[in-house]
C-alpha cells in the first residue's frame, strides 16, 4: 500500500496534505449528489407514478360540505325499489309521471346530475330543510307540498293529461321522497349545507338587461338550447337540452321564472361543464333574456295578468306582466299537442 521508496509522505506539511484534496471532495460530492438524485427518482417513480391526478380540494366557508352516497349503495328490497323508482321519476319524469307533466322537462333538467349536483338546488340539501314556511303560498310546507308546487309550475301540470299535479298521497311523492331521503343519508338536519339551492348573485348597478342578454344567449347558450330556446332533441325525439321558454318549458309560476333564481343557476352551472365561466353580469343578462320570453301561463291566474302579477309576483325580479315588443308577457302559450 505505502510505497517504501516513496518518502514524500513523511515530509509533507499539513498544508500540503490538504492540497489536491479539493477535487476528490468535489468528485465525491458529485457522486453523492448523483446518488441522492437516483434515490429521489426511485421515490418519484414509486410514489408519484402511483398516485392519480390531484382532485380539487374542497373549500370550506362555514357551511358544511356534503357528499351524497354513490348510486351503488342503494339498498335492495322494497325500500331500494322505492328509492330506485323515485330516481326514475326524477330522471324520466315525463314517462314515470306522465299524467302530471305538461312540458318537455324533467326534475333533473334543473336539478342537475339527478339532483346530486351542488349549487343546482340539490335534493340532499332540500330534504333536510323541509318542512319549511314558504312565502309563496304563505304556509308551512311539507316536502309533498313542495313537490306539488314543482309539478304545478316547473312541470306545468296544468297542460298534463290529468290537468294538474299528482293528487295528495300519490305514490309518486312517496318514491321521490324516498330517493331524496336516501340522497341525504347522514346529512345533518336543518344545518346549512354547502351548495344548497342556487347561488345568490348580487345585482350590480347595471341591473339586468334583455338586450345585453340576447347577445350573451347567442354566444353562450344558443348552440345547445337553440336560437329559439326550444332546446334540442336527439334523433329519437328525446329532449336532451331542455326548452327554456315556450309551451314546452316551465310556466310563469315556476321559481326559474324569476330572474334572480335563473341567474344563480346559470352562473353556477351553465354552460354545462363550464359552470362559473360566465360573469355575474352575463348570468343576470342571459336570465333576463330567457325570462322575457312567453311561456305557459301562471296556473294561479284567475283574472287578468295584471291582477295576477299584483297577487303573486309582487317584488319578484321577473318580466311577468310587462309588455315587450307589444306583447304582454304572462298571457301564456297555447298548449302544444303532446307527442
Amino acid at each position, binding site marked *: 500500500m505505502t510505497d517504501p521508496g516513496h518518502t514524500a509522505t513523511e515530509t509533507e506539511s499539513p498544508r500540503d496534505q490538504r492540497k489536491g484534496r479539493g477535487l476528490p471532495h468535489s468528485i465525491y460530492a458529485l*457522486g453523492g449528489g448523483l446518488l441522492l438524485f437516483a434515490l429521489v427518482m426511485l421515490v418519484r417513480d414509486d410514489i408519484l407514478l402511483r398516485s392519480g391526478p390531484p382532485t380539487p380540494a374542497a373549500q370550506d366557508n362555514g357551511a358544511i360540505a356534503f357528499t351524497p352516497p354513490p348510486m351503488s349503495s342503494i339498498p335492495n328490497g322494497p325500500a331500494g325499489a322505492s328509492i330506485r323508482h323515485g330516481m326514475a321519476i326524477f330522471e324520466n319524469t*315525463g314517462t314515470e309521471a306522465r299524467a302530471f307533466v305538461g312540458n318537455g322537462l324533467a326534475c333533473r333538467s334543473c336539478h342537475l346530475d339527478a339532483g346530486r349536483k351542488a349549487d343546482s338546488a340539490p335534493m340532499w340539501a332540500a330534504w333536510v330543510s323541509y318542512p319549511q314556511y314558504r312565502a309563496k303560498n304563505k304556509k308551512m310546507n311539507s316536502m309533498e307540498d313542495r313537490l306539488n308546487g314543482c309539478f304545478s309550475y316547473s312541470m306545468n301540470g296544468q297542460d298534463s293529461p290529468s290537468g294538474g299535479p299528482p293528487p295528495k298521497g300519490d305514490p309518486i311523492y312517496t318514491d321521490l321522497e324516498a330517493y331524496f331521503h336516501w340522497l341525504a343519508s347522514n346529512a345533518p338536519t336543518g344545518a346549512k349545507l354547502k351548495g344548497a339551492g342556487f347561488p345568490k348573485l348580487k345585482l350590480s348597478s347595471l341591473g339586468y338587461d334583455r338586450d345585453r342578454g340576447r347577445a350573451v344567449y347567442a354566444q353562450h347558450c344558443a*348552440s345547445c338550447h337553440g336560437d329559439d330556446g326550444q332546446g334540442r332533441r336527439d334523433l*329519437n325525439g328525446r329532449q336532451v*337540452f331542455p326548452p327554456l321558454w315556450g309551451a314546452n318549458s316551465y310556466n310563469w309560476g315556476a321559481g326559474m321564472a324569476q330572474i334572480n333564481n335563473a341567474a344563480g343557476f346559470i352562473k353556477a352551472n351553465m354552460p354545462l*361543464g363550464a359552470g362559473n365561466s360566465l360573469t355575474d353580469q352575463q348570468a343576470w343578462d342571459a336570465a333576463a333574456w330567457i325570462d322575457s320570453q312567453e311561456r305557459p301561463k301562471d296556473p294561479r291566474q284567475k283574472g287578468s295578468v295584471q291582477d295576477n302579477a299584483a297577487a303573486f309576483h309582487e317584488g319578484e325580479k321577473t318580466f311577468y306582466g310587462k309588455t315587450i315588443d307589444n306583447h304582454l308577457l304572462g298571457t301564456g302559450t297555447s298548449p302544444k299537442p303532446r307527442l
Partner: protein
Amino acid sequence: MSEHPLADEAFEPYEPRRPVPLPVYWMAIALALWGAVTLWNDSTAQSSGVGQRLAEAGDMTRRHSAAGADLFAQRCATCHQANGAGVAGAVPPLQGSRFLGANPQLVVQILLHGINGPIAVGGDRFDGHMPAFGSVLDDGQIARLVTHLRATWGNGGEVEAAFVKAQRQATRERHASWNGGADLVSLDPAVGPQPAFLSAPPAPSDSVAMALARGGKAGGWACSACHGAAGEGRSGVPRLAGLPADYIAQALLAFSTGTRPSDIMGPIARQLDGPERVGLGRLYATMASASRARPELDGDLARGATLALQGDDRRDVPSCFSCHGPSGFGVAPIVPAIAAQQPAYTAGRLAALGRHGKDDAGAAVMPSVAARLSDADRRAVADYLATLPPSPAIDTDTKDAR
C-alpha cells in the same frame, strides 16, 4: 526537456493511506441497495404488467360472458330505462311490449340490425331509431340478453347462442336496419298492427359527394381510403358515419382555415368548396355502418362508463351523455356522435381540446371539460365509448323538417 518551472516542487500527488477512499465505499453500498430495490420493484412491475394484461383478457372474457341482467343495465338502460319504462314519446317501453312476447327471432333480429322507422308499442307510436348491436355484441351476449328480456317482460324461454348465430347467418346480407314495425310484422304478426313505413323521398342522390368520398377531388386522396367505404373509421382514423352533417361541414371548414390544425385533413379540406363540404357532411351523416371500434387504450371501462353516464362531480365533469345524447348518438346540428368512435381519436381529441381548446371554434364547452380529465380518464372514456353500438343513420333532411 522542459523549461517550465514546477509550481510546487515539494508537492507530489500521493496515494492516501486508504487506497479506496471511504466515500467510494459508501456510494458503492448505497448504489447496491438502490439497485436491489429497483430490481425488486421492477420485478413486481413485471408481474403487475403481466397481471394487468391477464386481467384485461379476463375483463374481456367477463364482458363477453356478462349475465343478461348486466348486459341490459350496461347496454339498454340508458334508453329503455332500468325499469324498462322507456321514454314517453321517444323510446318504446319494454314493460308489456308485444315484441318481447313474440317469436324470439324478432328480438334477436332487432338487436342485430336495429330499427329505423315508426313502430307501435303499447298503443303509442314511436318514430325512432334503435341502433344495431350486431357489431358490438357477440352471439352469446345477444342470447343472454334476449333471454333476460323475455324472462323479465316477455314470455320466458331461453334463447341459445346457436339460435342467434343462425339468425345472424340468415340475415348476414342485410346491412340496413329494419324499416319500422311494418317491416318487423313480417317476422312475426304477433306484434300487432303496425304503422306503415313511409319511405322517405329518396335523398337527392348526391353523386358529387359520393365521388369525392370514393375517388377524392381531382384524383386526390379519397375520404374512403382512410375512413372506410362506409365511414366506419379504423384504428386511429375517426368514424364519420352518423356524425351530424353540420358538424362534419364545420369541421372541414375548420381544417381548411387552420382553426382546427390537422396535417392530414388540412391539405384535403383546403381543396373543398362550401357545397362540397356540406355534401360530404350529408353523405356521412346518412351512412349506416357497423362499429369497427374496439377498446385499445388500456382504459378502465367501468370508470369510462361512470364518466359517460354520470360524470364526476368531484372534478365538476358532467356526464358525456348529458350533452351528446343518452347513448352518445349526438344531437344535431353540432353535437357530434361519440358512440362507436375510435378510441385513439376520442382520447387524442379530448387531450387536444383540453390543452388547445381556444383554437377550435364551435367547441365552447368541451375544452373546459376535457381539461379536467386526467390521462387515464381520457383513455377510460374513449375505450368505453368504443364499446357502444354505432349511432343509427338518419336522413337529416326529413329529421330537420320534423
